[in-house]
């Protein structure tokens, strides 16, 4: 099978380039893209990529596979490259450190900005802060995010304004805390988002929804945040 791989080593290359490599896949077995990358790395140990759990839980092997962002470990080769050519590039829109490894600082900075932790000023009860099953249900579809960045780096609005637009991943988490019955900082959180960029730069393109490996829906969460912002300004 032919693999076209994005290569860039800033110490030796002036510009990035695509390298064509041939791998022999074992008969009668559908590999994941990550397995193919490991085979390539066996031939050439300089191939650089991130991975950890290899089962779609850690979120470290997000990359662009045949034009679509996905986690390499849970993406079957047969599904993305039915014509027999695999094209692997780093996540778009982030600075490349080497080969498929990107610098995610700006993505994490946006995540940090939405204060991704429970804020509650009330005195702590003797037991845990309780939540009704209904309130807990509101967090479904939000808390499962693994911060793989597949969505934010597929979003044109994030490409153009990664310093000002929070991006789908950060906004999904922003809503996760806005929706939490135990959080008391709702007003402050909304103040922090009520400018023309942080939330409103979302144009509803829904690339985020189409790539999320966990099947989450950032666009819907963004819609909820927008409604909350509208409700207090009108």
């Amino acid at each position, binding site marked *: 099978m032919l693999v076209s791989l994005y290569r860039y080593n800033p110490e030796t290359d002036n510009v990035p380039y695509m390298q064509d490599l041939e791998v022999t896949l074992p008969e009668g077995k559908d590999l994941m893209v990550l397995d193919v990358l490991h085979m390539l790395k066996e031939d050439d140990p300089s191939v650089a990529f991130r991975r950890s759990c290899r089962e779609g839980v850690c979120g470290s092997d997000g990359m662009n596979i045949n034009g679509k962002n996905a986690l390499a470990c849970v993406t079957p080769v047969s599904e993305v490259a039915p014509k027999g050519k695999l094209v692997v590039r780093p996540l778009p829109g982030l600075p490349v450190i080497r080969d498929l490894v990107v610098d995610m600082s700006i993505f994490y900075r946006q995540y940090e900005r939405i204060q991704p932790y429970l804020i509650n000023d009330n005195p702590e009860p003797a037991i845990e802060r309780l939540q009704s099953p209904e309130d807990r249900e509101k967090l479904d579809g939000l808390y499962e995010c693994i911060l793989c960045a597949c969505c934010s780096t597929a979003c044109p609005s994030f490409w*153009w304004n990664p310093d000002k637009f929070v991006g789908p991943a950060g906004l999904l988490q922003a809503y996760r805390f806005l929706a939490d019955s135990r959080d008391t900082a709702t007003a402050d959180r909304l103040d*922090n988002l009520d400018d*023309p960029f942080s939330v409103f730069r979302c144009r509803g393109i829904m690339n985020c929804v189409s790539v999320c490996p966990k099947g989450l829906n950032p666009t819907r969460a963004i819609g909820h945040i927008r409604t909350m912002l509208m409700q207090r300004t009108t």
Partner: protein
Amino acid sequence: MVTSVTNLGRTGAFDWLMQRVSAVVLGVYTLFLAGYLLASPDLDYAQWAGLFDQMWMRIFSLLALISLGLHAWVGLWTITTDYIKPTALRFLIQAVCGLIMFVYLVWGVEILWGL
């Protein structure tokens, strides 16, 4: 919070709402005009001028004109902040857009009230 001085209102929510409201006004105005033209196949100048002589039509037209300005401002502001990164150039283009909209507005008032 990200700050910005060149957008329309103070908040993103205000801009977002204005763009939707102005879109509705423009849509209604377009439908009305298209319906009027379809309903009067042998329209002559006197009838057309008569329509625009009525106060409600002038107010409706002015409202549509202002909506066009607001709608275009929010849209063009978004486009320029997306694609034009050098601040001086972006500000220049935004200023030109603003000027054009202002000219259209004054010009439109003059046409409507036949000043």
